[in-house]
């Protein structure tokens, strides 16, 4: 195998590969990226056995072939090469070495045979549809903060993507929760997605997927089966197993009867929460919200470290209410609001609180209060 490729193109492909390989794996081949040169393209394939990413890049292929080499080492080398350099990769199959040349730099890397590389089995996808990158970006960006990291509840370690019935008809919906807060984000149902099985997309996959979604004009081909999900652009294909578990019935968690309505400028609110939380004890980070007519007082009282208070002018017309929250959770949901005011709907100081942007119900957040 021998081919030449522009440094920037190579860097992008190898960067994607090295972020998928598991740093602490015990199987040497899984640290490697499979490089396959054929025709006018080179494919870079990396896997951690749960996720597989294939990046196709244009190159001048002199001699077709394939080999595997450490993804992290190759990435480090390419990263340090000067911008605009032309990189030539030559595989000496007999010696088990890959030569990387660029200008006056010359590297010689150990390879492992391509036959040892575990290529993810292809599977039958029951549903195939296409969605614009910005739509998927919104679905995952606004929900991923609520993904749980708790391993005993592994079925919460991802975003539940499924088809649901909303007020305006059927929608493509992403839900994530860790038992403390929940995000439910809806998007118009793409053509062909109606019979998609609901799947839990693992946290790592959500992170890798994000790199495919930067281009506003891109259309992402999505394929879903009971066990796998695939996202593809013309250059990159990301295939992932989905979490084998049942996502809890989140609908009963979302309060329907909360009537006490607070409307507040999200940015002002977030800044005020952030300020008063400075004095709260490191771990609980509890902030108290005291509501009376058109006035919100945020306060923290930490016996060990001090106290803080800040008032905000808000729209609120219900009875007085005092309710506590974890400051971090409040900040996270407030930062999801980007166009209009944040609208909070409370019931009592012990019940889940709902937050949305203006009257837009296509993105709702639920947060559990804490005793203060």
């Amino acid at each position, binding site marked *: 195998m021998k081919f030449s490729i522009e440094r920037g193109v190579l860097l992008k492909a190898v960067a994607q590969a090295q972020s998928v390989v598991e740093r602490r794996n015990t199987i040497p081949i899984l640290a490697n990226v499979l490089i396959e040169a054929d025709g006018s393209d080179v494919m870079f394939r990396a896997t951690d056995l749960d996720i597989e990413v294939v990046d196709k890049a244009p190159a001048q292929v002199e001699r077709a072939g394939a080999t595997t080499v450490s993804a992290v080492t190759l990435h480090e080398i390419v990263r340090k090469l000067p911008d605009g350099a032309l990189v030539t990769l030559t595989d000496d199959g007999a010696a088990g070495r890959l030569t990387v040349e660029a200008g006056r730099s010359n590297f010689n890397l150990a390879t492992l045979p391509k036959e040892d590389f575990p290529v993810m089995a292809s599977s039958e996808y029951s549903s195939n549809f296409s969605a614009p990158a910005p739509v998927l970006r919104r679905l995952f960006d606004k929900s991923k903060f609520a993904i749980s990291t*708790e391993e005993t509840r592994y079925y919460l370690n991802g975003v539940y993507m499924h088809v649901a019935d909303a007020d305006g008809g059927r929608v493509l919906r992403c839900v994530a929760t860790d*038992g*403390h807060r929940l995000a439910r984000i809806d998007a118009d149902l793409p053509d062909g997605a109606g019979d998609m099985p609901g799947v839990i997309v693992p946290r790592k996959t959500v992170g890798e997927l994000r790199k495919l979604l930067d281009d506003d004009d891109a259309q992402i081909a999505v394929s879903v089966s009971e066990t796998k999900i695939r996202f593809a652009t013309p250059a990159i294909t990301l295939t992932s197993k989905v979490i084998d578990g049942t996502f*809890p019935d989140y609908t*009963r968690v979302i309060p329907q009867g909360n009537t006490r309505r607070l409307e507040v400028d999200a940015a002002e609110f977030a800044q005020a929460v952030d300020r008063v939380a400075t004095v709260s004890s490191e771990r609980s980070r509890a902030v108290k919200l005291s509501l009376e007519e058109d006035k919100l007082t945020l306060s923290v009282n930490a016996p060990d470290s001090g106290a803080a208070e800040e008032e905000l002018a808000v729209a609120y017309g219900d009875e007085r209410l005092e309710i506590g929250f974890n400051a971090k959770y409040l900040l996270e949901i407030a930062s999801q609001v980007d166009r209009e005011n944040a609208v909070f709907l409370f019931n009592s100081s012990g019940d*889940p609180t709902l937050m949305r942007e203006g009257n837009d119900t296509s993105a709702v957040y639920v947060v*559990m*209060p*804490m005793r203060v």
Partner: protein
Amino acid sequence: MPALCRSCLTELNTSSPPRRCPSCGSPRLIAHDELFSLSIAHMDCDAFYASVEKRDNPELAAKPVIIGGGRRGVVSTACYIARIQGVRSAMPMFQALKLCPNAVVIRPRMSAYVEASRAIRAMMDELTPDIEPLSLDEAFMDLSGTARLHGHPPAVMLARLVKRMKDELGLTGSIGLSHNKFLAKIASDLDKPNGFSVIGKAETAAFLHDKPVRLIWGVGQAAQAQLEKAGIQRFSDLLRWERDDLHARFGAMGDRLWHLARGEDRRRVSAHAPIKSISNETTFFEDTSDPELLDGHIWRLAENVADRAKAKGHAGRVVTLKLKRANHTLLTRRLSLRDPTQLADRIYRTARDLFDAAGDQGPYRLIGVGISDLVPADDADRAPDLLDPTAGQRTEAERATDRIRARFGKDAIIKGRALR
């Protein structure tokens, strides 16, 4: 040289101490240059549980007595007669009975031991307010600055303490007297039972020089193995190490070792040594892998841990499940909670999740449940789980149960699960 008679508490100061007490003739005389200036002591009762049993039942006096639970349990305490035949604390009971088949095995009567311990504690309270109990039967005492108050140096008051324990309670203890906790603890073990040992500043270095590092309280088998790998077996080996190198290799323990090797220990005798964890475990009569049975145990252990946490106003952020398999290999699983807890319900559910997630087949001989990373109860159980809508009701039920128990006794109300 200062000297003291442990029988009649006569204080002497002669150039060469006599072999017997000039006033009562007792040979139980201790003499040491620093005897009347040292003030950090460690008192350790001799075979405490067994001694209480022998005191309460004189028929046992001449028999080997082992305190411990059941055929499957371990030796909690062995009297000195049983120890002669090789029985040791923490030895599996079957092994102890092999060594000492005529031993009288007694199930622990904790209430009797607690009562005896309280009586000893009351006597110690008369000596100093700086008492740090390590368990029911041992404690550190700092008697610095009490000589003027008592009219006698600490050594005399300590000798009087063990004399009173023997005369009034029928229990003996051993005293270690030195200039810090580390050495006092070592000293109390040098002359057991009914002993009194002194390690002065002057001989500290020479005393430690050839001693094995396992003398250090807290250096168990694992740490010993680690040290041995570095070629450290004795205190003299430690002295060859630079402080930075010890730190680099052993972290915080390295710093401590560097000081201890020089006989230095700056820890204070503190009555309020913070509790770091609360845990409870049980050894089964028969190895088991029955999930129903194990579930019942997890609940009872969780409830016991919760009761103790509630009594002290503690809550834990980390819940730990410990399982010992039939082949004695250990399986531990822990989970850090976002919202710490002191509730039996949440400890149980977390431990149960850990058990399910462990995916291990067993069978097991022991199961344990504990909480650690403790916080005040006020900072706990503040944020109910969104996905568990009945959690709030269960919390209310548990608090109500606690109130009923406080009024009508511990068995007034129990969960069906506890009967499994």
